C-alpha cells in the first residue's frame, strides 16, 4: 500500500480541495491515469497516479485538506495476484477488497495501539467529519478522531475538540508495538523532541488572516527601507474639546484616536506622498484619503488573536462625529466577524494605537504598499516646559514609520508637524 497525499501543486499552496474523484474507490488504476481533480486557488488540476494498483479513496469529494494529508492509497499486487484479475473495474473492486487483509481487521477493531496507522486514519477519514487543522493536531497527538464528539457545524470536529482530550491523554504515538509507518514517523519524532526540550508544544495552524499578516509584515520588513520619526503632541486642547463634546452628546463623543484619524486625514490631503504608495517602482498618489484603523481581534485569546484594519474611506471629508460613529461601527463588525472585505481594503494610510494598553510610544511596521503608518501612544500627564516653567500637561507621543522609497525625512516631518498643529489647535478638526 502506498499513501497518496494532497499534492503540493505550487510553492505557495497550503491546502487543496478534492473536486471530484476520476476513479472509484476499489478501481484498478494505471500509472499516468487521472485519479482526482484537485483545486487550489482558482486553479484545478488533474492529479495522476504515479503507480499501478487498486485505489482506496480516503478523502471525499468536496473535502479541503492541507498539503501532505492522506487522500487515498494505492495497493500493489499482493500475494502474487496476477494483474489480469483486475482488468475489469467491477471485478477489480471485488477481488482487491478481498486481497487486502489489513484493511478489514483494522476497520472492525480500532485498537488504541495502532492509532497512528494510516489504515486506521483512512477508516476515520471515511466517516469522521473534521477540519484539516483538527486532523493534523489529532495525528500529531495520536488522538483517535472517531472517539471524539464534534462541536462544529454538523458535528464536525474542530481544533478545540481535539485539544481538550489531548491535554488529558498524553501522546502515545510511536510507542505502539506495530511497525511505525513512514507517514507516522516524522510527526511522532517531532512531538517527542519538542516534549523533551520545551515541554509539551501545541502546534497551531495560523488562520488565513494570521498567515497574511505573517507574509506581509515579513515582506515589509525585508524590502522596505523604514525610518521612524517621533513627535510629542500636547493634547490639552483635545482633552477640553472632548469634554465639551461629551457634555453635548455623551454617547457619541469622539475618542482621542478619532481626532488623530481626522488630523491625519487633513494633513494627508496636503502631503500626497504620505498618502501615496510605492508599487512596482512607481509612486501611486491617491486622490482619496482613506485611513485604516488597526483593530485587535480576540486580543485576549493568546492563540487566535489577530489584527485587522478597517478603513474609514474619505476621512478628510468626514466630520469628527462621522469618523467616530464609523470607526465604532467598523470595530464592532470586526469583533463580531461581520465585516466585509471592501471595508478592510482601500486604505491609503494606517493609524495604529496602543495607548489604551499604557504604551508610551512604539514603532509600527509599514503596511505595503502604503507609504507610512502612525503609531499612537497613550495620552498621559507629562512634565513639560511652558514659558520657562515646568508644568504638567496631557501629552502623547506618536511615531511615523515611513517607506523611504516614497516618503522622505523633510516631507514626513512637515506632515507630522501639521498633525501636531491640528491636534494642538483642534478647532479645525470640528469644521
Amino acid at each position, binding site marked *: 500500500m502506498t499513501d497518496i497525499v494532497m499534492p503540493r*501543486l*505550487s*510553492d*505557495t*499552496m497550503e491546502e487543496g*480541495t478534492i*473536486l*471530484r474523484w476520476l476513479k472509484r474507490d476499489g478501481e484498478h488504476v494505471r500509472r499516468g491515469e*487521472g485519479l482526482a*481533480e484537485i*483545486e*487550489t*486557488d*482558482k*486553479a*484545478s*488540476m*488533474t492529479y*495522476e497516479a504515479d503507480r499501478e494498483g487498486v485505489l482506496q479513496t480516503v478523502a471525499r469529494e468536496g473535502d479541503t485538506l492541507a498539503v501532505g494529508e492522506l487522500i487515498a492509497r494505492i495497493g500493489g499486487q499482493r500475494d502474487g495476484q496476477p494483474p489480469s484479475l483486475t482488468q475489469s473495474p467491477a471485478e477489480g473492486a471485488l477481488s482487491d477488497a478481498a486481497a487486502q487483509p489489513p484493511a478489514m481487521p483494522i476497520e472492525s477493531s480500532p485498537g488504541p495501539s495502532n492509532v497512528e496507522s494510516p489504515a486506521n486514519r483512512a477508516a476515520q477519514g471515511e466517516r469522521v467529519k473534521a477540519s484539516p487543522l483538527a486532523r493534523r493536531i489529532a495525528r500529531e497527538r495520536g488522538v483517535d478522531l472517531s472517539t471524539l464528539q464534534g462541536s462544529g457545524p454538523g458535528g464536525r470536529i474542530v481544533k478545540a475538540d481535539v485539544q481538550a482530550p489531548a491535554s488529558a491523554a498524553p501522546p502515545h504515538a510511536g510507542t505502539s508495538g506495530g511497525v511505525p509507518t513512514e507517514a507516522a514517523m516524522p510527526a511522532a519524532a517531532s512531538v517527542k523532541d519538542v516534549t523533551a526540550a520545551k515541554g509539551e508544544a501545541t502546534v497551531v495552524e495560523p488562520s*488565513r488572516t494570521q498567515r*497574511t499578516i505573517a*507574509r*506581509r509584515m515579513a515582506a515589509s520588513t525585508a524590502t522596505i527601507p523604514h525610518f521612524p520619526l517621533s513627535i510629542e503632541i500636547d493634547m490639552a486642547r483635545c482633552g477640553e474639546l472632548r469634554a465639551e463634546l461629551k457634555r453635548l452628546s455623551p454617547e457619541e463623543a469622539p475618542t482621542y484616536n478619532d481626532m488623530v484619524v481626522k488630523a491625519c486625514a487633513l494633513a494627508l490631503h496636503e502631503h500626497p506622498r504620505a498618502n501615496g504608495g510605492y508599487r512596482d517602482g512607481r509612486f*501611486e498618489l491617491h486622490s482619496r484619503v482613506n485611513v485604516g484603523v488597526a483593530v485587535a481581534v480576540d486580543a485576549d485569546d493568546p492563540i487566535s488573536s489577530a489584527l485587522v484594519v478597517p478603513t474609514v474611506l474619505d476621512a478628510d471629508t468626514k466630520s469628527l462625529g462621522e469618523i467616530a460613529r464609523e470607526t465604532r461601527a467598523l470595530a464592532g463588525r470586526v469583533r463580531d466577524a461581520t465585516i*466585509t*472585505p*471592501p471595508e*478592510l*481594503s*482601500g486604505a491609503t494610510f494606517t493609524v495604529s494605537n496602543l495607548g489604551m494598553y499604557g504604551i508610551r510610544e512604539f514603532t509600527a511596521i509599514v503596511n505595503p504598499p502604503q507609504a507610512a503608518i502612525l503609531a499612537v501612544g497613550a495620552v498621559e500627564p507629562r512634565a513639560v516646559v511652558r514659558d520657562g516653567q515646568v508644568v504638567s500637561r496631557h501629552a502623547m507621543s506618536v511615531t511615523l514609520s515611513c517607506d523611504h522609497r516614497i516618503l522622505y525625512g523633510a516631507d514626513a516631518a512637515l506632515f507630522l508637524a501639521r498633525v501636531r498643529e491640528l491636534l494642538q489647535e483642534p478647532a479645525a478638526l470640528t469644521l
Partner: protein
Amino acid sequence: MDRSHTPTDRIDVRRLSTVPYRDALALQADLQARRLADEIPDTLLLLEHPPVYTRGRRSQDGELALGEDFYRARGIEIVPTDRGGKVTYHGPGQLVGYPIMRIGDVIAHLRTMEAAIVAAIVDYGVEARSRADEGIDYTGVWVADRKIASIGVHVSRGITTHGFAVNVVNDLAPFEWIVPCGLSGVRMTSVQNELGQEPAGGFDAFAELMGRCFCEARQGELTPA
C-alpha cells in the same frame, strides 16, 4: 528537472475573432494534446465569446439565481466546464485569453496572468491591482473593489487550459444577473467603464497590448529575481 518540463520562453500569440464557447473548449483540448506532445510551443489564444455563462468546478446552486429560462431568453448559453472557480460570464467586448502552456507552479501561473492584466490596464491610466493577499476569492484583477478581470485555469499533465477574461468594452449587465465567482456583492467594471469612454484604439489595440504584456509577464516569471 526533466528537460521536457522546462517551460519555453517563446509564446505563440494567436488572435482569433468570436469563437463559440464549446468550440473554444474543443480547440483548447486539441492544442493541449499537441502541446503535451511538444508539437507546438506555448500558445496564447486571444478571442471573444458570444454571450455565455460558464460554471466552474466549485459552482453552487443559487449562482444562477434567476433560473435558466431567464438567461436563455436573453440569448445567453449556460455551459459547465472543468476549470477551477465558480460561475462567470463571457460576451462580446470582453477579451478572453487562453494560455495553453507547460507550467511548473500553478499559483505562479495565476499571478503571472494577474500581473499581465494589471500591466495592460494600468497602461490606459486605470489603477488596476491584484488582491492575491486577500485570499482565493480575490484572484483576478480589481480596480479599487470593482472586479475588472476574472481568472480560472485547469492543469492536466502540466499543461494549462482556460485562463483569463478582461472586461474591456462589454455590457456589464449580465454580471448583475448572477453572483460572479460566488462572491456576492462584487461590482464588476470594465476598462471603458473606468475611463468613461472607449479605450484609445478600441478593443483591438487592447488585445494587442494584452498579448505583449502577457509575454513580458511570463518572461518575468521565468527570470529569477
